[in-house]
């Protein structure tokens, strides 16, 4: 399955890109599994996800938990805690 991954703010800078399309191996089907798979690719993902605390995720533009399921073509975003207002 293919998903679009977006990065924002400090995480976007640490990863060095704001988006990428990735083809996931079977078995990588949740937010947590995707994050682990990205980190296993090594740097910059490993250091970026390691350095920034409390990274949150959204699937198809809705806040999502680690257990949230991914579907083909999903838009998955990772970002630090929000600081608007």
């Amino acid at each position, binding site marked *: 399955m293919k998903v679009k991954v*977006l990065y924002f703010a400090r995480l976007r800078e640490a990863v060095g890109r704001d988006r990428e399309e990735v083809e996931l191996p079977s078995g990588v089907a949740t937010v947590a599994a995707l994050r682990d798979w990205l980190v296993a690719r090594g740097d910059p993902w490993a250091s970026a996800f390691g350095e920034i605390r409390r990274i949150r995720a959204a699937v198809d*533009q809705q806040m999502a938990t680690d257990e949230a399921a991914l579907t083909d073509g999903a838009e998955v975003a990772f970002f*630090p*805690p*929000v*600081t*608007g207002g």
Partner: protein
Amino acid sequence: MPVRVQREDFDAGAEIARLRADDPRVGAVASFIGVARDRNDGARVASMTLEHYPGMTERALEDIVAQAKRRWDVIEILVIHRVGELKPLDQIVLVVVTGSHRGDAFAACEFVMDYLKTEAPFWKKESTPDGTRWVDARDSDDAARDRWNERDMPR
């Protein structure tokens, strides 16, 4: 439109006038304006840049407005949040709530701001004399949001 994310400044007086225009049910208007300070966490802030997640940010704000409307007896809610580069004294965010009575209008306005601070995807990056830095989320903002879960639902 009840939710706007924009680079441009806003005119709170004009927005309030439009929101309550020709609606004699309105007996109360509560509003909040967030403004950029020149200091944060012990450093001078020359400017800040607000980043957001186009699409999700609007949806998150619309969801917060819908929750507030379910929870309190209010008539209209408007949220305007700016993005891009802002300087001290600049306006950042406007929330306006109209209702028949002040109690629900005040509460809904505060609820929208507390949820916006913790649930709407915006991120601030400050420019200080020591360089640029991302603003860290505050635990006190999470606490401000969570206290709404401890209160009884009105009505």
